[in-house]
């Protein structure tokens, strides 16, 4: 199942709302949460990160992994948290509406 356009950003924000992590950690988190159902090119995730960074929704800093490797860690900003709340609400309402429409039973005369 491929990711619907525009939803990757909010998924990334959600991931980072748990804790700050680097790119690969985020990939693993998404794969695990989706039960490997989401087919996602890794590069797309990074693009989403850069996009969010540019908008000031996430911040990045170089740090070290537990194994002592140099890695770029991403963190949610206050604006990012706000965005996540709004986008989550929006998504839920949207999904509900679409679900309602798609599951409506045609009335037979």
């Amino acid at each position, binding site marked *: 199942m491929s990711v619907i356009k525009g939803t990757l950003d909010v998924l990334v924000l959600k991931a980072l709302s748990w804790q700050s992590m680097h*790119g690969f950690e985020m990939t693993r988190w998404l794969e695990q949460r989706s039960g490997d159902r989401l087919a996602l090119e890794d*590069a*797309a995730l*990074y693009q989403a990160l*850069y996009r969010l960074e*540019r908008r000031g929704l996430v911040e990045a800093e170089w740090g070290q*992994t537990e194994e002592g490797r140099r890695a*770029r860690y991403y963190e949610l900003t206050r604006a990012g948290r706000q965005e996540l709340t709004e986008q989550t609400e929006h998504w839920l309402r949207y999904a509900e509406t679409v679900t309602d429409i798609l599951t409506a039973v045609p009335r037979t005369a």
Partner: protein
Amino acid sequence: MLRSRIRRLFRLRGLTPRDSVREVDDEMELHVELRAAELVRRGLDPDAARDEARRLFARDAGTLRALYAAAVERDRRMRTRQRVESVAQDVRYAFRGLIRDPGIAGFIVVALALGMGATVTAWTLLDRLLLRPPSHVVEPDRVVRLYGELDRGDLGLRTSSWIPYSAYLQFRDLASFESVGAYRILERVVGEGADARRMRVGDALGGFFPLLGVRPFAGRLFDARDDAAVEGNLAVLAYDLWRSRYEGDPGAIGRSILVDDEPHTIVGVAPPGFTGTEPRRVDVWVLASSATAGTTNWNIVGRLRPGATRQAAGAEATAVHRPDESGSFTWFRDVRIFAGPLAWGDDGREPVEATLARWLAAVTVIILLITFANVVNLLLVRVARRRRELAVRVALGSGRGRIVRLIAAEGALLALGGGVASLLVARLLEPIVRQALLADQAGWTSSLADGRLLGLAGAIALIAVACVGVVPALQAGSPRVVRALRGGPRAGSATLRLRGTLTVVQAALSVPLLVGAGLFLRSVANVRALDLGIDPEGLLTAEAMLPRLERFSFDREWDTYRRLEEAVRRLPGVEAVAVSIGLPLDGGSFSAPVWVPGRDSIPALPGGGPYVSTVSADYFHTIGTAIVRGRAFTDGDREGSEPVVIVNRTMATTLWPGGEALDRCFHVDHPGSPCARIVGIAEDVHRRGLRERPSFQYYLPLGQQRMFGGAKLVVRPAAGAAFSRDALRRAMVAADPRVWAVEVRSLEESVQGELRPLRIGMVTFGMSGGLALLVALLGLYGLMSYMVAGRRHEIGVRVALGATHGDVVGLVMRSGIALAAAGVAVGLGIALVAGPWLEPHLFDTSARDVTVMVLVAAVLLATAAVAGWVPARRATHVDPTEALRTE
């Protein structure tokens, strides 16, 4: 070096696109490695795992490229945001710092505002007078005016723009010119009856407008065909006159307008602001009639062909010029012709106002630069004073760049504040300067409404920001100053000496300017105190325009004017009225010789004359000339009665020393005339103007003189009475149906007009002198503050050794006043040397006027005291222990 400093200043260092790419690579590498490790754990062999990890990351190069681009874009955007934030923070800090020290901040803003405002005003003037071409003239650079120049040997050069019509015909076909036009501007009476006014009327030949390229606002202008046609008299209204007289009614075109009592048909309206090629307003343009074409007072303008030069045109005109053998205009015979730009005046030179404006512009720029230098110094002093705060910041990790940027932000804020305030200053200065220098310029628009000048103001403000913001910041960033920040300023003696010299120079610069202002002020006061022998305040003259024939009969003129006098006397609000032929301060003076029985001749006096006025009985009372002995004329002194005369004091005392002038008699005009008996002696009167030399003046009663005509009424309105010139005009027109127009003038205004050069001097010198004084104040203050900061240690020691506050204040102020005194001495020296150059422009005032010099010196020393006071007070706050500990 400078570049790297500026780069540091603005934090240009940081991520470049290459860095962005490298970061992406690093990130990607880790990702692929971790993914591969995971795949290996799932059972793939390392090589395959690696390939698979790569494939999972990005299927093709396009994806990678997009990724890189996103990173580059991200970094670019973030750098910008960071920079804006950091600048905003600097500005906030700087603002807070300035607010904490509002005195200095306000002072700097005011100094910058005055400096910049004055500069903008001066340049506005210069632009007006010299740089701006006349409105509505197409490619004005190619339009030139011709002048005749005659070398009269010992008498010097005579240059004039008056050229005879015959020469115009010769110059019409010069190769240098595309076209040639002629015009002249005369004062003529426009309109009829009580509505008639003397106006500036331009006589133009048909080719004049096409040459300029001006387009009509409405209707049409004249063109070359009109010269040949015999359609009659044509007129074009100036836009302003059309608005005021015809309320902008398009129906005005086709109507008739009287110019010097001759009807002209209005054919069009000139565009707003059009004044021909000269800056002064023109109310009506008329097509020059063939009757006036033979005259000599034409101005010739030509449009140069592309590539032709003024020099070539002048040489060509001189070569072509054949003197008119009829010889009516003799001085023009042997002239050299030259061509000048339109900005030049009638005398073929740059107008004196333009020279003044140029001078003023230069002075203001110099002063402005010195202001910048002083403000920079002052800011550096602030840095020195705040070195503790700054040192703490450095200690807390603020980089040097940060402090530099903070100072730059302070300077920029001050400069911007000054720039905004300077617009206000320019607005206030403008009407003053305009009134003094440009009294009769048409179509003045505020410089604030002029895009170019607003641009100039903006540019000056930018330069100010650069000078006042960047320079101290660079200075503060230099290692020397940073070292000073750590240790406290210890001004080297060389630096102090340099700054001391600069301060002396500034003080010295302001002295001659202030002396000049004082001398002009004194001149104006002298003029005010001058006894003209008449009382011009509120005094009006009124001349009735009569059909020409009426003018030629003395009896008719007397009759008419006696009737007019009666009519005006009955007007409410008129205190007194009289008739006079030959009025003082009115431009024309009549003179007629006298023969005194018992004298071979009478001495010639430097003021000329003897001048004669022919006046009605109430004249002396009306004009305010005192009769010192004897009597004034009465209504009984008229045609047919005993010939009588009143002489002035100079005439009485010179010709009849010993006071026996009364009842003596003399012959007027020719020895055979009846001997007129002296019945009164009047006070001497200024006939020509403010500068008057003694002359013989005498008065004859109206009706007893048949030499001169040209009567006028002198009217003195009652003080405080609501009396309008229009009422005067209406009364005179109503009194005699043959009066077709009335011209009313104010004698007071003609006196005021003579004050104009003095006012110009006062304004230019006053403005630049005041500015220079302010700059000197600023400089002294900066220097004193710097000295106090540098001598904290010494002052601390003195205080520790028992010096009182008074001692400390005295110590600081003495050195300030000593510098100012040196400046005053040098400045007064300059003023004394330059004095003779100024003296001819003054009125009854020596250029070495002691009072003025003493006052200026006092003002400067007082300024120095003020400038020294604040730093001196600060010096008393030096805590000896603290000052000694900072070592």
